[in-house]
């Protein structure tokens, strides 16, 4: 069967509408909201700060901890029980791997940079939206970064390769989902996962589409950071 028109009417390479805002959690050292379609991620950064319990400390370098959390009412069906699941634990790890390559925490021995990411509503693509929000929050916190991190889920629905899957596409029976995190300046990939079925040739197309989509996400991120720091200039 051919996938002629996307369920929500978007073009095959079209991202859902994005919104990004920096500085949304007043108590945090850095924070950001990143919204794509109906998936909303709020990220807050605390640190570098002393790491407790002490046995987790690394005298050689600071460490990064990511906490990914869907709020109880953010799922598609039943209430999501608080406290995390095997799925959320894996995503925390994946997000740490996505973000750590752009950080250098060698100057912060025995410390931790905590990144908390909460989702008030979700419509697929949460780990990718979470990575985009977390990257913005780290930049807002003034943590030294070599690059931003952008992420998007590319997928295959029937015969078509599509950008930024929504829930309906993500849960489609004859479909594949390939979340990719990319560093926009170097083009390097810090996350790739996949479930479904694709050909090696598909992968070439997927990377090309991911690169183009990540450039658009990067533009949204830069605009959000500029908006905050421009505001500060205006005040001073």
């Amino acid at each position, binding site marked *: 069967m051919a996938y002629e028109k996307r369920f929500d009417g978007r073009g095959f390479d079209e991202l859902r509408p994005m919104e990004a805002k920096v500085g*949304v*959690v*007043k*108590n*945090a050292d850095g*924070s950001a909201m990143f919204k794509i379609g*109906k998936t*909303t991620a*709020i*990220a*807050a950064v*605390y640190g570098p*700060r002393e790491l407790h319990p002490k046995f987790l400390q690394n005298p050689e370098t600071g460490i990064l901890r990511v*906490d990914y*959390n869907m*709020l*109880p*009412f*953010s*799922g*598609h*069906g*039943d*209430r999501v029980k*608080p*406290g995390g699941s095997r799925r959320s634990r894996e995503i925390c790890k994946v997000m740490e791997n996505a973000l750590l390559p752009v950080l250098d925490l060698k100057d912060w021995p025995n410390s931790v940079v*905590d990144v*908390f990411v*909460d989702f*008030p*509503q*979700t*419509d697929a693509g949460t780990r990718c939206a979470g990575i985009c929000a977390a990257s913005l929050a780290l930049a807002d916190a003034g943590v030294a970064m070599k690059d931003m991190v952008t992420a998007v889920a590319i997928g295959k629905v029937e015969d078509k390769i599509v950008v930024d899957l929504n829930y309906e596409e993500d849960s489609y029976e004859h479909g594949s989902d390939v979340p990719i995190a990319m560093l926009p300046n170097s083009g390097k990939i810090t996350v790739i996962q996949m479930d479904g079925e694709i050909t090696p040739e598909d992968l070439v197309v997927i990377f090309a589409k991911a690169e183009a989509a990540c450039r658009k996400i990067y533009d949204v991120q830069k605009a959000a950071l500029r908006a905050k720091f421009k505001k500060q200039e205006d005040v001073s």
Partner: protein
Amino acid sequence: MTHVARETLLASLKAGMHLDGRPLAAYRPITVTTDISYSAEGSARVVVGETDVIVGVKLAIEKPYPDTPGRGNLMVNVELRPMSNPRFEPGPPGEEAVEVARVVDRGIREGGALHAEELCISPGKQVWSVMIDICTVNVAGGLIDAAGLGALAALLHSKFPEHTDDIVHYDRRTSKKLPIGTQPLPVTVFKIGDFFMVDPLPEEEAHMDARLTIAITEHDTICALQKGGSIPLAKEDIHQMVKIALKSSHELRKNIPRQK
């Protein structure tokens, strides 16, 4: 959080003002936005000063409790998210979260905010469970009142999903609203030295001697009380705190968004 010396704070309170210049019985600017999460049956975001909470209501069909076979279930849960304050850590709800949840719960339950009988589908077998989750984005003073306002706003804006027998179709929402009875709101009056106030800044809250949360309906009846803090209160203190709470509740109530 900035630390403020007790004498500095008391001097300001003596002049009848919070440290930010507000009258003692006044709230910081409040904004309430409803329907902020499409996946919840009802939701609201409440910002009071720099305190920011998100509340979501989920509905499910469950078995009633054996002692209330003809009444729906109510659950209030508070997640003091680690993002919202450096003193919160990931993990199961601690003492503070449980206290806020129980105080908000009692106001809603005892005030009769929901007609629980109308949540019954089949006595002893199937009832609607109303699950309210209050999640903090930023905690900077006055949490209980913000949480209670958010819970009420989310309840008022909740809509039932369709269901076939006990299967709920969350993707198909009806226009039917929850059976709302009264509209209780918790108002917390703080005592610092000889002074009473509502909605303290975090640097004021740090000097709290005692607090009294008073849940009040729109008919000015009291439906729940909870004293906090380790300093005892005189009976006269409590009378005065109730008087302040009644007055401040009228101001707080203006922020309840009208039902659509």
